[in-house]
């Protein structure tokens, strides 16, 4: 049986159920790298140019882990655009070449070219082409692809209903609940207690916006989600924003959808800024991220103009846990004081 490795980084959080269903449907075994740890990160840092952003370096570490695990193929998509006229960071388009160049002894790469502006390169067509490399039987590929897409849609719907990608993947059976304990928080969205009448104060609600690979990689971000949960904060993320909310947010903040994945971040920030139930917004970004350098500026500007509580956390391989904890606590304290005052 062919073993296909998929790195637990970058696109993993958005598409893993899709890829997994497709490849297993075609008789392959899907191997996934473990959650990022010190060794994986060190492996990634070793080869890459220093200016490369942390998520891409981490990705290289995961690819190196999969190489050591002896997979036959590594699945690395090159995604240029997902819907129409938007653009992706060029690093994502260069990902297969980057890995080939920087991971020594990299296994053969199963790559797909996704470019929604070309009809022959939509996500479906690209995945179909990848499927045909695994199986010559077109009907079987199409059936597997249809199953994969329906899983993908279910996965997306679950996230919109308030589950994190990790929770949704566990519920769909792609991950074990104990596989990534620190990323799995059952009391993640606690119900409101008390209320306006009195009793206990309602918990703070903070929107955490940023790329899934920054928000859900607990090693890179020093487990922000869990820390916020421990501080008694109710957390919302980009995936939980409704599609129309995202579009309105983008229109309000930047006018148009320019970057594929940054659009989601800006849209979510815009959506949550407009939501009076959200007490504050935290943006998490990797240092040196090209698209985020512009998008954070847009978000920050809106926060200033609309006087909303906002903080940005920039992560890189040197960011210390203590610094992040201090800033999170200070932000939460500030929001709590603010809320008590306005009551």
């Amino acid at each position: 049986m062919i073993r296909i490795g998929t790195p637990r980084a970058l696109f993993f959080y958005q598409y893993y159920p899709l890829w997994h269903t497709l490849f297993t449907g075609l008789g392959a075994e899907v191997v996934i790298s473990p959650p990022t740890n010190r060794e994986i990160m060190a492996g990634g840092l070793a080869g890459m140019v220093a200016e490369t952003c942390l998520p891409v370096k981490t990705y290289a570490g995961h690819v190196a882990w999969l190489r050591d695990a002896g997979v036959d193929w590594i699945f690395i998509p090159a995604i240029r655009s997902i819907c129409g006229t938007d653009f992706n960071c060029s690093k994502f388009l260069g990902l297969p070449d980057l890995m080939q160049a920087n991971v020594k002894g990299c296994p053969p790469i199963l790559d797909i070219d996704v470019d929604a502006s070309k009809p022959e390169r939509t996500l479906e067509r690209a995945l179909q082409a990848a499927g045909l490399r695994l199986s010559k039987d077109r009907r079987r590929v199409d059936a597997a692809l249809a199953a994969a897409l329906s899983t993908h849609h279910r996965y997306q719907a679950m996230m919109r209903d308030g589950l994190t990608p990790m929770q949704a993947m566990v519920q769909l059976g792609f991950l074990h609940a104990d596989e990534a304990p620190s990323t799995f928080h059952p009391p993640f969205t606690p119900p409101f207690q008390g209320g306006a009448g009195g009793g206990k104060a309602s918990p703070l609600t903070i929107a955490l916006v940023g790329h899934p690979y920054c928000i859900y990689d607990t090693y890179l971000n020093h487990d922000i989600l869990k820390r916020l949960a421990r501080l008694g904060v109710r957390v919302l993320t980009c995936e939980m924003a409704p599609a129309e909310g995202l579009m309105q947010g983008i229109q309000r903040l930047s006018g148009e959808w320019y970057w594929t994945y940054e659009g989601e971040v800006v849209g979510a920030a815009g959506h949550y800024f407009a939501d009076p139930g959200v007490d504050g917004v935290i943006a998490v970004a990797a240092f040196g991220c090209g698209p985020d350098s512009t998008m954070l500026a847009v978000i920050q500007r809106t926060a200033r103009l609309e006087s909303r509580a906002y903080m940005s956390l920039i992560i890189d391989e040197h960011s210390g846990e203590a610094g992040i904890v201090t800033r999170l606590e200070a932000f939460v304290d500030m929001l709590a004081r603010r809320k008590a005052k306005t009551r």
Partner: protein
Amino acid sequence: MKVTVPHAGHLWVALHTLFERTGIEAIEPPPSTQRTVSLGVRYSPEWICFPFKVMLGNFIEAIELGADTVAMAEGPMLCRLGYFAKLYEQTLHDIGYANVRVLAFNWQDEQIVGLAKFLRSILGEEYRWRDITGFIWHGIQQIALMENLEKRVQYLRPRARDCQQVERIWATAAPRIIAAHDKKALKAVRHELEGELSAVPLDSRADPLRVHLLGEFFVVIDPFVNMDLEVELGKRGVHVTRSRWIAEWAKIWLFLELIGLGHDKKVKRAAHPYLSRDVSGEAIYTVGETVLRAQEGYDGIIHLQPFTCMPEIIAQNVLPRALQDHDIPVMYLVIDEQMGKAGYMTRVEAFVDLMRRRRTRIRKEVAIA
């Protein structure tokens, strides 16, 4: 309306003539200085690339002199350039220049036709299309002349007996070309300047190294941003070449692209084993030209990139793999507002020494063989 356009290489040579001929009031940003950079850095997002910051500084300094409209080119691709115009307008408004408009010409829509429409919207509807295309063509010719002379200057710097003589002639080129308002005048200026340059006495013992500059377009072509790298290398006996030229860019993106012949197939083929996709920006040229120059026996490559430039980071990451197959020294220079010229020149000198030693060694090996 008082228009301003950012500095980029010799772009203003053509713009001066254009605005003089049409009588449009335009404001050239003062030559970029440390103040330009400081202004740009103060109001820019922290890790946006250096070209954004310098151009913002240009705009602010031009607005201080009375400009109220900013005109620039943008190319929406995977690089951030496509988002610049929007961000500039927001930033300038936030600083307090509420009436400043930012007009952007997108070269990927309609190429030369788009530029003609853009220019007409600035100059005014009373100009006929024939005049507009005439202006554009003359401007491109001026820049092409400027750049062809610059190629000659690059050749002469390490070979002339008196390097300063070359610089003195070169310094007169821009004002003379600006004054050439028509084809005939331009031709006369070309003859004069070419004559003056070919009269420069050469040092017959000169044995210049050949170095190719490549990387992100703006930092390669703009002498302020790359701190006069070409002059400094020339003084140290290096014949510098480069492939990033505004006239060349215009040829590819304004004309050839219109009929689908824009890309240099040879460079793409050379890059393909190492970088198989055009990740936008100049990344594919960086990789492809490195391979080609190595095959041509160049002594070295200097790769210039602004800090956090996405396409060039990819190029820099894949280049080591190309260099396993192609033997050529490469120096990487990452440019941002933190750069000091002294540190930078020390590195350049060390690189020149390295290339000299390498050349001597190779010549010895050839002689022994």
